[in-house]
């Protein structure tokens, strides 16, 4: 508030407070009390709220970007089209605006595809390094009571499904998709299960003797953990980002505030954790998944509408980021199903890549 008490003209809320209120941000106690008792300010706040709602509703209604045109290999000179982004900034060659535009779309498509895929694949332990393809399956809509899947164009051997866990039926999970459809995910002994997220429950899984990979900034020899991966350290080795370090080893002295990593050479590295520490348990038990948790499953669709999973990941917190349809540039491939409306977003989902990933994950 700009509040010289003798200046009645300026005793109302200032624009900063009104904007903050319209954006749902906290305002000071004094400003809040003033807003409650001042009709002028309530009206002003209401006007700004309406303007803000108008802008936000426009933003929310931002249409989907058009699917990119197919890029036949001969459309762009090979040297102008790296697999995705150029390996080094500046490598991108200009070979004509149209080719470049296509190239850019393709690059972003790759990026978007990879983003969606990596969450799932990292969780299920599929050989992510070999992957270029599957992104997201949306089991949406449809007139029939149950979605019955058939083949996915261009990606016949692998599908994924996401939703919230409704219940467990023995070794099967029943998940509810965003559209409300139930989908049964069957598992076998070889199905990998993992959990990831920032939650106290997952932090509690960091117990003495666990093999972990810890990433985070280091200060005075102590790592403030951004992420902790509980798995065989040989399987996971994130590259340290700038200003951060990665340490692999075995947990000791676990407590609610952190733990010690004992590395292979016996070095002891203290680690602190917080509520924002993301923990991934790569060898979880399906029976531990709580009802209501967000689930991503990867596997093969059966004729009865179930998904035979090679991997299941539970996103404990935060909820899984929304995958496409909001992805500009994603290529949509419609899937023939008994329940219409199902779409799959893929990039280069070649049978060879699928087979390789299945082999790695199965």
């Amino acid at each position, binding site marked *: 508030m700009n509040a010289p008490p003798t200046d009645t003209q300026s005793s109302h809320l200032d624009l900063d407070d009104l904007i903050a209120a319209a954006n749902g941000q906290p305002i000071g106690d004094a400003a809040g009390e003033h807003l409650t008792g001042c009709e002028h300010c309530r009206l002003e706040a209401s006007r700004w709220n309406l*303007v803000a709602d108008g802008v936000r509703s426009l933003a929310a209604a931002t249409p989907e970007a058009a699917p990119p045109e197919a890029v036949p290999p001969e459309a762009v000179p090979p040297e102008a089209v790296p697999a995705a982004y150029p390996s080094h900034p500046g490598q991108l060659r200009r070979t004509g605006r149209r080719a470049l535009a296509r190239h850019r779309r393709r690059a972003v498509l790759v990026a*978007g595809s990879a983003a969606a895929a990596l969450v799932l694949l990292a969780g299920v332990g599929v050989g992510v390094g070999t992957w270029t393809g599957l992104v997201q399956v949306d089991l949406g809509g449809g007139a029939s009571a149950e979605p019955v899947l058939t083949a996915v164009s261009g990606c016949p051997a692998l599908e994924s499904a996401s939703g919230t866990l409704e219940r467990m039926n023995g070794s099967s999970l029943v998940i509810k998709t965003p559209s409300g459809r139930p989908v049964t995910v069957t598992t076998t002994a070889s199905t990998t299960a993992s959990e990831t997220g920032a939650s106290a429950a997952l932090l509690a899984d960091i117990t003495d003797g666990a093999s972990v990979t810890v990433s985070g900034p280091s200060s005075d020899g102590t790592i403030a953990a951004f992420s902790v991966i509980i798995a065989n350290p040989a399987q996971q080795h994130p590259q340290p*980002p700038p200003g951060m370090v990665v340490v692999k080893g075995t947990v000791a002295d676990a407590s609610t505030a952190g733990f010690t990593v004992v590395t292979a050479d016996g070095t002891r590295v203290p680690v602190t954790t917080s509520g924002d520490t993301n923990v991934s348990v790569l060898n979880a038990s399906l029976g531990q998944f709580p009802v209501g948790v967000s689930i991503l499953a990867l596997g093969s669709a059966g004729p009865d509408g179930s998904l035979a999973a090679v991997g299941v990941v539970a996103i404990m917190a935060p909820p899984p980021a929304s995958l496409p349809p909001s992805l500009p540039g994603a290529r949509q491939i419609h899937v023939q199903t008994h329940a219409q409306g199902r779409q799959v977003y893929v990039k280069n989902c070649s049978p060879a890549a699928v087979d390789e990933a299945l082999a790695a994950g199965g």
Partner: protein
Amino acid sequence: MNDPNGNVGAAIFAASRDPASRDGWLLGRIGQGDEDAMAAFYRAHGRVVLAQVLLVTGERALAEEIVQDTMLAVWRRAGDFRGDSSARSWVIAIARRQTRDRLRGRRLRVVDDAFLADRPGSGPGPEVTALDRAELAEVRVAIRDLGPAHREVLGLVFGSGLSLPEVAGVLEIPVGTVKSRLSAARAALSRILNEKGQIQ
């Protein structure tokens, strides 16, 4: 995915609850050529940038191309990010420059537009009552009829969720000017609503 060893980290950091930490980490990875980090960054900000650019340009195809160019610039220049501002305001500033470059030559009265955009509002008057009685759908239509500078500042503040200092940084104007532009935008919105006679 060119870096199998980094994928798990990218996935986990992308899910971080702390956007600033996440974005800083992601941009660091992008600077090292990590496609997965680029993908995560795109997912975190792409739609917001697209909405903002679309609000300013009003042309979907153009907005999409600008977003593509923006993300390519992020890919190339991630190493330039120093954390002096939020990643969102940084990428939106890039998008704004891309938009300006694309629109250069289309609009000859850029200076006039900026001048008009910053004219102080006339204060509560008959137009304000239009906002008091307007419906959301009418406001949406009226926003589209605003000048680009007004659409831009409203989008940055309410659509992209930037703070007023961040908006000032993106627009390269003082915070006080952001405020006066906001007020002018709202006054213009009220006038449009009034002139359209949508409010009886």
